């Protein structure tokens, strides 16, 4: 039975729930002294004092500064690129162009389509063409202005529909496209059908359907891209970069620079926000390394905000036609969706996006029949990629809107209709074989209904004032790694020497979500030591064992399990030492409060340090390794790997808001956000993730959109790209639901991404409750809302 706890500011709630343990708790670990307690992030003191070092804060002797020349047109042949004037300028140390390397790279092995710099042609406005390293940033910029470029225009593909057409090979953006559509600009097409879709629609009592349109949005992390490369005297390259996924960058660098991986060290600097936007290997990383190779000096690239937005990888602009079928009791029968996804200039994570837009609709409701046609196309716009809730957010808006429409049509309360359809725990979805181990969505929705007084409000608030609901699920890490191999997905090493410091090595990237703190908590809990004894080193590929990094919401589940396994090895060593010192059997010891206590005779106890030094006798430092690999999962059809995860998180949100019918302006009042994270290892962080997801989701719901004219992004700055400010952000009540996942570390699942998707439909459905219009375009800006209100009034007048 899941446990519901906590909300925004009621710390006491956490205390009340202490002592609740998942089935997967370590045998013998009964202390529960650290897991489940709010813990400030381990690096937070460095961050509040300004001590934390981000890439742009670093300086090296002899360091040069790089600026990048970017394409000013969306699709064109480069007729002439003249760097001679730039090269001749005093203070310029190197200029590189596309001639430097023709090696293509990309995050997915199937989409190696990025060049470090454009060669014969440019494929989006903002694409790097050349770069300068100079003694100062001012000189580098002046040299960039001195480079001459002449273009010859090619056919531009600025609407995703244009990319579906057959064209001449010369007009194709990339040589390699979807095999099924070889003459188009389609990057990836996915067609899946399971169950009797036609039959379901025939027998249905309600078949809501609509066309939806989503603008592209950006991660909007506050730290602009910045990296430093240093090709040292020993011929090793050191790249300092705020990467969410240092391992994939490490691989891509080896490929592009043609070096063995061990000759490259990737050092993750403090990451000033990622949200998926720092998880591709990037052109500017390659450029910095090339300039460092050519100059043998450290080279720093710092982008401005506009360049950062042009580098992109945000949520795909999407157009969807979706229909759902329900019986008269509101039971979901089928989903049929046709989705066109604008991938922009590169592949990036797009093959995954093409699958996720369909297959992740197989929850949180039991779906008997499923049809999906998805196409991700290349276009001459800013590359799209992975962003928080990757591939699940836009389709979730579609399905949650249609679920709401069915509820209204069938005369069933929208929450009640959802409650009738949720996937149960310990179940497997009928077609894709997604395995649901634990779910607390039922309890979450009921708690959100209670706290929001849903039944007193829905359908009963005055005109202009409404309440709406949205539900979602998300993967706790992709079960299949991007690179197929036998290596574990996460490995954690622990070293404890006689000083008593517990050093954990991991390559899971702390990007502000608190993964270092999570690893420290797990290790401290298992070996019963204080949290401040544990130091997590997660920045450097030379010392950290491989972890696939911070994407697909995988870190707590996978790196957390690896940390626990490593800590249990240490625990056994310490127990053996305690046994030797006391004569009691090793399996009878509990670990807590820096002591190792005999369970049957609590007066027999050994201090942590004493046990440690005994364990170190004749061998020195205790060294342990733990790892995590997902269990075999899934069906055996083509594409069956997409969407598989060892566990899924679930969320149920309710939003109350006001709509001004004269202006279309939407003012959210409050969001009740119930999220099932399995077990809140650190409730402070879980609340932070939920609240941050709600904030980011409200941005996509109401104000954020990447606007274009002729392929040029019109609002590549934070004045015109509107992230909600404190004024725009309503009160958020985070409701932690604990379903105690049997395979998660101490029962934990993800909470960083899944909590974003339900906000947007909760807003859309609340707008319907407020003013009676359905919003099919996101963001729901005042002009769009007003247009919908006016259209409804016109229709009513005509009727």
């Amino acid at each position, binding site marked *: 039975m899941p446990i519901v706890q906590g909300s925004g500011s009621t710390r006491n709630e956490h205390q009340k729930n202490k002592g609740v343990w998942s089935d997967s708790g370590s045998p013998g670990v009964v202390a529960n002294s650290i897991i489940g307690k709010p813990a400030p992030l381990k690096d937070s*003191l460095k961050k509040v004092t300004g001590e934390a070092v981000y890439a742009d804060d670093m300086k090296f002797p002899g360091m040069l500064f790089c600026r990048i020349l970017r394409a000013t047109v969306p699709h064109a042949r480069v007729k002439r690129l003249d760097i001679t004037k730039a090269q001749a300028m005093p203070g310029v140390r190197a200029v590189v162009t596309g001639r430097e390397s023709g090696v293509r790279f990309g995050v997915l092995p199937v989409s190696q389509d990025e060049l470090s710099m454009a060669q014969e042609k440019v494929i989006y406005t903002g694409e790097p063409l050349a770069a300068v390293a100079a003694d100062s940033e001012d000189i580098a910029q002046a040299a960039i202005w001195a480079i001459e470029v002449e273009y010859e225009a090619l056919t531009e593909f600025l609407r995703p529909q244009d990319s579906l057409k057959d064209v001449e090979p010369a007009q194709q953006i990339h040589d390699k496209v979807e095999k099924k559509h070889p003459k188009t600009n389609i990057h990836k097409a996915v067609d899946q059908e399971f169950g009797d879709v036609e039959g379901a629609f025939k027998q249905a009592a309600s078949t809501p359907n609509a066309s939806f349109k989503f603008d592209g949005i950006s991660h909007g992390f506050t730290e602009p891209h910045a990296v430093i490369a240093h090709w040292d005297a020993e011929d090793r390259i050191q790249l300092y970069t705020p990467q969410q996924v240092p391992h994939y960058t490490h691989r891509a660098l080896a490929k592009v620079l043609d070096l063995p991986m061990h000759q490259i060290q990737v050092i993750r600097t403090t990451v000033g926000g990622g949200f998926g936007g720092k998880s591709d290997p990037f052109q500017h990383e390659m450029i910095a390394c090339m300039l460092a190779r050519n100059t043998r000096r450290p080279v720093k690239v710092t982008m401005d905000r506009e360049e950062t937005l042009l580098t992109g990888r945000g949520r795909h602009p999407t157009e969807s036609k979706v229909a759902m079928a329900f019986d008269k009791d509101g039971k979901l029968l089928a989903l049929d969706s046709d989705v066109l996804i604008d991938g922009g200039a590169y592949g990036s994570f797009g093959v995954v996006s093409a699958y996720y837009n369909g297959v992740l609709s197989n929850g949180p409701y039991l779906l008997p029949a499923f049809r999906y046609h998805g196409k991700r196309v290349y276009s001459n716009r800013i590359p799209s990629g992975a962003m928080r809730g990757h591939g699940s957010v836009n389709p979730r808006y579609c399905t949650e809107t249609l679920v709401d429409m069915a509820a209204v049509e069938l005369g069933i309360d929208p929450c009640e209709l959802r409650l009738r359809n949720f996937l149960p725990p310990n179940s497997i979805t009928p077609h894709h074989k997604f395995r649901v181990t634990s779910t607390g969505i039922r309890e979450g929705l009921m708690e959100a209904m209670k706290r929001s007084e849903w039944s007193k409000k829905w359908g009963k608030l005055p005109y202009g004032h409404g309440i709406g609901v949205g539900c979602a699920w998300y993967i706790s890490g992709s079960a299949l790694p991007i690179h197929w191999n036998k290596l574990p997905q996460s490995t954690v090493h622990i070293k404890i020497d006689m000083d008593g410091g517990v050093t954990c090595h991991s390559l899971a990237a702390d990007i502000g979500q608190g993964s270092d703190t999570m690893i420290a908590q797990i290790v401290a809990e298992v070996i019963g030591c204080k949290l401040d004894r544990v130091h997590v080193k997660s920045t450097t590929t030379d010392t950290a064992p491989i972890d696939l990094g911070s994407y697909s919401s995988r870190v707590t589940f996978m790196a957390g399990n690896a940390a626990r396994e490593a800590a249990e090895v240490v625990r056994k060593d310490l127990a053996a030492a305690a046994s030797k010192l006391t004569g009691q059997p090793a399996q009878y010891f509990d670990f807590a409060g820096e002591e190792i206590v005999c369970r049957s005779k609590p007066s027999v106890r050994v201090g942590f340090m004493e046990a440690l030094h005994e364990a170190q006798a004749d061998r020195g430092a205790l060294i342990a390794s733990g790892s995590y690999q997902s269990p075999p999962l899934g069906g055996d059809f083509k594409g069956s790997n997409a969407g598989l995860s060892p566990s899924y998180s679930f969320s149920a949100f309710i939003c109350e808001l006001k709509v001004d019918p004269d202006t279309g302006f939407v003012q959210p009042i409050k969001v009740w956000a119930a999220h099932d994270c399995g077990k809140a290892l650190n409730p402070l962080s879980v609340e932070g993730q939920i609240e941050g997801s709600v904030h980011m989701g409200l941005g996509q719901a109401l104000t954020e959109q990447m606007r274009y004219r002729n392929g040029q992004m019109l609002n590549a700055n934070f004045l015109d790209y509107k992230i909600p400010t404190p004024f725009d952000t309503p009160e958020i009540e985070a409701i932690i639901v604990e379903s105690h996942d049997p395979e998660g570390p101490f029962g934990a699942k993800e909470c960083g991404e899944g909590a974003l998707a339900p906000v947007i439909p909760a807003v859309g459905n609340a707008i319907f409750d407020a003013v009676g219009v359905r919003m099919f375009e996101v963001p729901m800006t005042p002009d769009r809302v007003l247009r919908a209100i006016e259209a409804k009034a016109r229709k009513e007048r005509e009727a």
Partner: protein
Amino acid sequence: MSKHILRFHVNDRAVEVAVEPWHTLANVLRNDLNLTGTKIGCDMGTCGCCTVHVDGKARLSCLTLALECQGAKIATIEGLNEYEIHPLQRAFAECGGSQCGYCTPGFIMQSCAMLKENPDPTRDEIKAGLSGNLCRCTGFMKIYEAVERAATEMREKPVSAPVKA
């Protein structure tokens, strides 16, 4: 074009530095004085990451030319904790008001200036006071809690001149 000598006080120390006329206060603090706690998020006054105090008032250092600060007294995030950690810093850390941390120095400097003017702000006054600062991680809730907690603490036990500037 030649460099000009800028003489001012930064975190209570007299400083003399030669700067280009087009360099901003943010550039000079970060590049010339190595005070990298002040962050540049947009360089056009839209995110608040670069907020510092100029003569006791919060200012966006990316929109302030360094030479405008001739003779001024500047305080940065590094100046807040010269002797002991400031209540705002501790509250931001302990309440979860900082995740990735990039916006945090700006938020703390803005909050500090706000609390000087209004030591007992309501939630709405805090929102208004911080409306020029963007945080992409926290959703602001934990930031408000941190400011409220620090404000209470500072009213009960005033901070003895965290920075004299």
